[in-house]
C-alpha cells in the first residue's frame, strides 16, 4: 500500500520544505530595522497617509462580482475528478461533461443579458 503513496509523500516533503526554508532563511538573514518608525505602521497612501486605516464600507457591487467569480471559476474544481477517470467513463463521461458546461453557458448568457457583468451604472 505504501509504495503507490511514496511518490506522493516525496512530493509533499518538497512542497513543505521549500516554502518553509524560504520563510526561515528570510527570517534568519533579514537585517533588523534600526529604528522603530511610526511611519512604517501607516498604510502606504502615495506618500500622504495620515492615520491608521479607517474601516470603509465597500459597495455591494463588489459582492456581485465575487459571486460571479465563484459561479464560473470554481466550477473547475468539479472537473478535476472527471479528468482523472475520463478514459474509464469514455463517451458517457464526455457527454456528461458537455451537459455540465451547457448549464454553465445558460447561466452565463442570462447573467450577460441581465447586465451584471457591466459595472453597476
Amino acid at each position: 500500500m505504501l509504495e503507490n503513496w511514496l511518490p506522493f509523500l516525496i512530493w509533499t516533503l518538497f512542497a513543505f520544505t521549500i516554502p518553509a526554508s524560504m520563510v526561515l532563511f528570510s527570517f534568519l538573514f533579514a537585517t533588523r530595522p534600526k529604528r522603530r518608525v511610526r511611519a512604517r505602521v501607516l498604510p502606504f497612501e502615495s506618500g500622504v497617509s495620515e492615520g491608521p486605516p479607517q474601516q470603509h464600507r465597500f459597495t455591494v457591487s463588489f459582492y456581485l462580482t465575487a459571486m460571479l467569480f465563484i459561479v464560473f471559476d470554481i466550477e473547475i474544481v468539479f472537473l478535476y475528478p472527471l479528468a482523472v477517470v475520463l478514459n474509464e467513463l469514455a463517451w458517457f463521461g464526455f457527454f456528461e461533461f458537455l451537459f455540465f458546461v451547457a448549464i454553465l453557458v445558460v447561466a452565463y448568457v442570462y447573467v450577460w443579458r441581465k447586465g451584471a457583468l457591466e459595472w453597476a451604472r
Partner: protein
Amino acid sequence: MAIAPERPRIDPALLRGGDVYEGTRIPSPVPTILEVSDEIRATGDVLQVNFGPNHPSTHGVLRLIVDLTGEEVVGLKAVIGYLHTGFEKTMEQKTWWKAITYPERIDYVAYQNNELVFVLAIEKLLAIEVPPKATWMRMLLCELNRIHSHLVYLGTSALEIGAISMFWYCFRERDLILDLFEMVTGYRMHTRYFQTGGLAEDIPIGFYPEARKFVDWMPQAIDDYEGLLARNAIWLERTRGIGLLSADDAIALGQTGPNLRASGVDWDLRRREPYLFYDQVDFRVPVYPNGDVYDRYRVRVDEMRESTRIVEQCLDRLEDMEGEPWIADDRKVVLPPREELHTSMESLIHHFKIVTEGYRVPAGEIYVPIESPRGEQGCYVVSDGGPKPWRVKFRAPSFVALEATATTMHDALVADLIAIVGSLDSVMGDTDR
C-alpha cells in the same frame, strides 16, 4: 452662480464637430472640483482615495483626491504644487543671458519649445533680426522636440493603460532623436542651444545625413505604433468615448493644443498666428471631432507625422544654406567670435560687458505665445531696461490641462481616470513652475 451663463458662439469656421454633449459638464461652484452629489454621499459608500504625489500612474507628482463608490469616480480634486521650483523668482535674479537655461527645466519634455519662447520674447523686445539659417534650425529642433514629447506621452500613457510594449517602441525612437540633439548641441536633454540672436554654435558637418536617416525611418515607426494600437480592441475599449470634452467646455476651460484639437476646434498657433517660418512650410493640422481619449491619441500620432514632414522641409532649406551666418552680428547683444578678441579692442570691450554685466533689454512688457506640444506656451516678460528681467511668467498649458480633470471625469471608472489623466498629457514641471 451659473458658470458662464451664456457662452459666446464659437466661430463655425473653426469647428469640426466637437458638440460631444449638450450643455456643459463643468462642475458648478468650483469649475475644477467635482463635488460628490448629496444622494451619493447619503448612501455612505463613498471611499476617498489618494492618487497621491508618488503614484505610478500620475505623470509626475500630481495628487488627485478621488471619491469612489466602488469603481465609479464620483468626486475629484486635483492638488498640485509638489514640484513648485520658483522658476519665475529665480529668473528675476539672473541676467538675461543666464536666465535662458531656466525655461528648459519648466516643461522638461518639450524643452526646446520652452527655451524658444523665452528667446523669442527677448528678441522681440530687442528688435534683433535673426538670420534665416538660425530660424530654420530652430524650427527643425522644435519639431523634433514635438515628436520627442509625443513619444514620451504615447509610451507612458499606453504603459498605464496596459499596452506595456508601447513603452519600449516609443523610447527606441526617442533615443534616435536624442542622438540628433546630442550631435548638434552636445547633450541629450536641456540643450541650451538657442542664443539671443540665433544659435549658440554652427550646425555640425554630419548632421544632415543623420537627420535624413531619422526622417526616412520615422514614418515606418509610427506605422508600427498604429499597427499596435489603432485597431487594438482593448485600446479602443479603454479609450473611446471616455473623458469627453466638448468644444465649448474646452474653450471655457482654456484648453489648447492637442486637447483642443481633439474636441473639434481647428486652432493651431503655427497656422493661425505663424511665428518663425511656419507660414513657409506646408503641414496639415489634425482635428478630430469626438473629444475623447482616443481622439487625443489620434491627434498626437498624426502630429508626429506632420512634424516629420516639417523636419524634412526644414532640412531641404538648410542643406543649401552652407556658410550662412547662424547668429546675428549685433555686438551689443551677441558675443563676438573668439578669434576676434585677440585683434580688436572694441569686441573685447563688448565681450567683457556682455559676460560680466549682461546685455540690456529695452524697457517694455510683451506676451509671446508659441505652439508647444501641449498647447499655447506663452511667455510674458517685463523688462525695466536693466540687465535682469523684471518679471517672467510662463503660461503653462499643463497647468490649464489639469483644470479639465474634473470636467472630463463625468461618470468615469477608476481605470478610466488613469486613461484620462494620461491623455491630458500634463507635465508637472510645467504645471507647478
